[in-house]
């Protein structure tokens, strides 16, 4: 096996990801916005943060993060050749505090989208095939906040831990 570095070389992570871990403080990960990298980032977040949570809380955290990150891939970087995403997670008592930063398009009107769950239509052929992302985020998370600063999007929220 070939050594990939000596002392001081950052731990190698997949697909150009870089992660910084501080025991007991939190979890930070930077990666390119594409669906495969999102999957890997979620995997790492689950390993580093969610392993100490109940299966239910871990599942909710992974779903909320997945929806945020998918939105960044599909909308913030829509039309861009992809770009960086920074994910920071921190546990505070009975909460996981999340911050996600990207350099893509701003949210429309620089506001969070409406998060109401759409009603289920009576006709099968009218069923939506998407559009649940923000509704899921709003259902799972609290204290959602968004700001645009220096050409970057900052989204923060907290996930309440239930058990």
């Amino acid at each position, binding site marked *: 096996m070939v050594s990939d570095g000596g002392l001081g070389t950052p731990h190698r992570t997949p697909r150009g990801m870089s992660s910084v871990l501080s025991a007991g403080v939190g979890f930070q990960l930077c990666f390119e916005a594409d669906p495969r990298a999102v999957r890997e980032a979620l995997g790492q977040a689950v390993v580093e943060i969610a392993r100490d949570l109940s299966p239910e809380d871990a599942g909710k955290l992974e779903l909320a993060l997945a*929806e945020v990150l998918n939105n960044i891939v599909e909308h913030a970087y829509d039309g861009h050749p992809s770009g960086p995403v920074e994910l920071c997670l921190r546990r505070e008592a009975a909460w996981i505090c999340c911050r996600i930063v990207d350099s893509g398009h701003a949210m429309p009107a620089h506001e969070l989208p409406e998060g109401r769950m759409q009603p289920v239509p009576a006709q099968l052929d009218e069923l939506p095939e998407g559009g649940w992302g923000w509704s899921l985020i709003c259902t799972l998370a609290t204290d959602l906040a968004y700001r645009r600063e220096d050409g970057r999007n900052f989204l923060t929220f907290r996930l309440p831990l239930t058990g």
Partner: protein
Amino acid sequence: MKLTAESVAEALVVNVEEERIDAAVAIQFKDRMRDLTAGAGGRIILDLGRVTFVDSSGLGAIVSVMKFLAPVHRLELAGLTPNVGRVFHLTRMDSVFPIHASVAAALQGAGHGL
């Protein structure tokens, strides 16, 4: 995206041999389902027993499959794990699909939920 299909009794059971149906594989999932279910005659049951994560893209893909199978077939789901069941519940899509505890239960019920 690994999906396998087997005929059991009068039903075609499609097994998802993956842990995730997410944005990274949603299109592959739809394409594979279209291939595997082409020409199927009876019930179609999607076994999600191995799947531990579905996001809104994966859910959209499952809804899309249900729509292209209709009106000849009504896609039935079996073996939802807790995380997967939560996504269906929160989006109210659990009211749209016949959902069975397992493939065995689905076959015993002979169309229960339809």
